[in-house]
């Protein structure tokens, strides 16, 4: 019996969607959200496992579109406490983003590329997974900034905004570390495989560097307090979302109806 990965991924998407809807409710639906999220993550994990199993020991091409929702799904329970309004908002934002990402991956799949020989190295896998984990952390960071932006719109609520941005920066710092490790792994892989530090056949490398400079800037802004808190919040939220969209672009292909 063969398992149809697009169908399993559709199932994962449906579960994420239901988990998002359940998260909009209060109190009693918390357990339902956790259950649905767990099912969604398991289905998503199965898709990633199948894609990986097929390509191993090489790297499955453009896995990011299906693996990023998984990373985000795994991070969601740790992204913020579900007891506080801020934590709840962050979880809702993350679930909404996961649903959007899964929807985009289903409508614009790029699963038709075969793996290539030069990806048969641990550095290639390190490049992929450090990058995905880093991007997921950046997304959590952006979610905290968005929650701060919308929950604390008025000046007297500055303390709440400060707390949200503190979380935002922590996640950004973690993401920056992972992203840097991913870039270094990619650089070493590039040298071993092609002899150059940068392989200019791959346009995605420019977006990787763009994200690195964007978050380097965010961390510098945080450490030096060069901008006001609200300006930094806008930068981390809207900029973070824009960078997330851009860095996901290379993993999406032409439109194909999922039905």
């Amino acid at each position, binding site marked *: 019996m063969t398992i149809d990965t697009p169908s399993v991924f559709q199932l994962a998407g449906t579960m994420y969607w239901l988990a998002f809807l359940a998260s909009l409710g209060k109190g009693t639906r918390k357990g339902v959200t956790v259950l649905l999220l767990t099912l969604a993550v398991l289905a998503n994990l199965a898709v990633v496992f199948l894609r990986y*199993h*097929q*390509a*191993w*020991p090489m790297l499955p091409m453009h896995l990011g579109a299906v693996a990023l929702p998984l990373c985000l799904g795994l991070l969601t329970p740790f992204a913020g406490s579900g007891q506080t309004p801020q934590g709840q908002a962050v979880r809702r934002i993350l679930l909404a983003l996961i649903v959007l990402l899964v929807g985009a991956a289903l409508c614009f799949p790029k699963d038709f590329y*075969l*793996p290539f*020989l*030069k990806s*048969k*190295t641990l*550095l290639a896998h390190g490049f992929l997974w450090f990058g995905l984990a880093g991007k997921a952390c950046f997304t959590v960071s952006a979610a905290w900034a968005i929650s701060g932006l919308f929950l604390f719109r008025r000046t007297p609520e500055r303390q709440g905004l400060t707390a949200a941005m503190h979380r935002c920066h922590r996640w950004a*710092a973690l993401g920056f*570390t992972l992203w*840097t*490790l991913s870039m*270094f792994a990619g*650089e*070493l*892989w590039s*040298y*071993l*495989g*092609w*002899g*150059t*530090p*940068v*392989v*200019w*056949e791959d*346009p*995605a490398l*420019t*977006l990787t*560097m*763009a*994200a690195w*400079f*964007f978050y*380097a*800037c965010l961390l*510098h*802004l945080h450490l*030096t307090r*060069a*901008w006001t808190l609200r300006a930094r919040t806008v930068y981390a939220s809207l900029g973070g979302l824009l*960078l997330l969209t*851009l860095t996901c*672009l290379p993993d999406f292909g032409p439109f194909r109806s999922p039905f």
Partner: protein
Amino acid sequence: MQHIVSRIWHALGSINLTVGLCLLLTADLVWGYFCLERHTPLFTPLNDMGLIPWMQTYGSHNLPWTVWFFLLLALLALLAVNTFACTTNRVVHLLAAKSMVSKRRLALKLAPHIMHYGLIVILAGYLASYLCTQVLTGRTLVPGAYLSLPGTGGQVRMVAFEPDYYRGTRLGFWKDEVITARARLLLDDGTTQREAMLTCTHPVRFLGYSLHMHDFAPKSQGGMKMKTRIDLHVRKDPGVALYLAGIVLFTVGLALYLYEWIIDRETTTL
């Protein structure tokens, strides 16, 4: 005069300049993505022909699509200067006050500056690599044939091609295809000989050159039999050591910073 130099130095080390440069670099690289995606063949030669020849040919003759790259070079150069000035200012202050803190504390305080210097070393390595690399493309070896390395008197001979074939069933397309292209080489520097194994992801270093497997044949066990050969890119890249050293430096700084951030800061706040 000294006053002017000091002012320029401080302006170059300004954190506001860092922020501005990072924003410009982000925007420029996003622009670069769209240019690179639509005109990839314009940039592919950068891998082999070096920066100056590329700028004089592909770069300068296709400015609408390559101007972002020239801007990137200028911004990176400015960022390197800014990072150096800013970091050096802070390191000087830290070292001036070193008697007031323990060695361990000082090492942790220096962590972000080690990262910054690491970045400069990486950028310098890239520049050296793109300016000074000698690349010999299109070098093909067949079993028993020799390749001479220019200016060294060294020779490389292919002893055998020993590939592994894909035996799994998961990827139908790969059945009986080469999954590990392995070539046994004999490296002769005129006085001694040694053997080395070259694969697609494992280059061989010899007399300052690195040999990278670019392509090979035959690609599969069955089907149309092609003559055994490997295509090499032979490179002499003075920048590699520098950017690898930069990566190590940056990673050390990052590890120290994380240690301070996670362990040291937690214990001091308890």
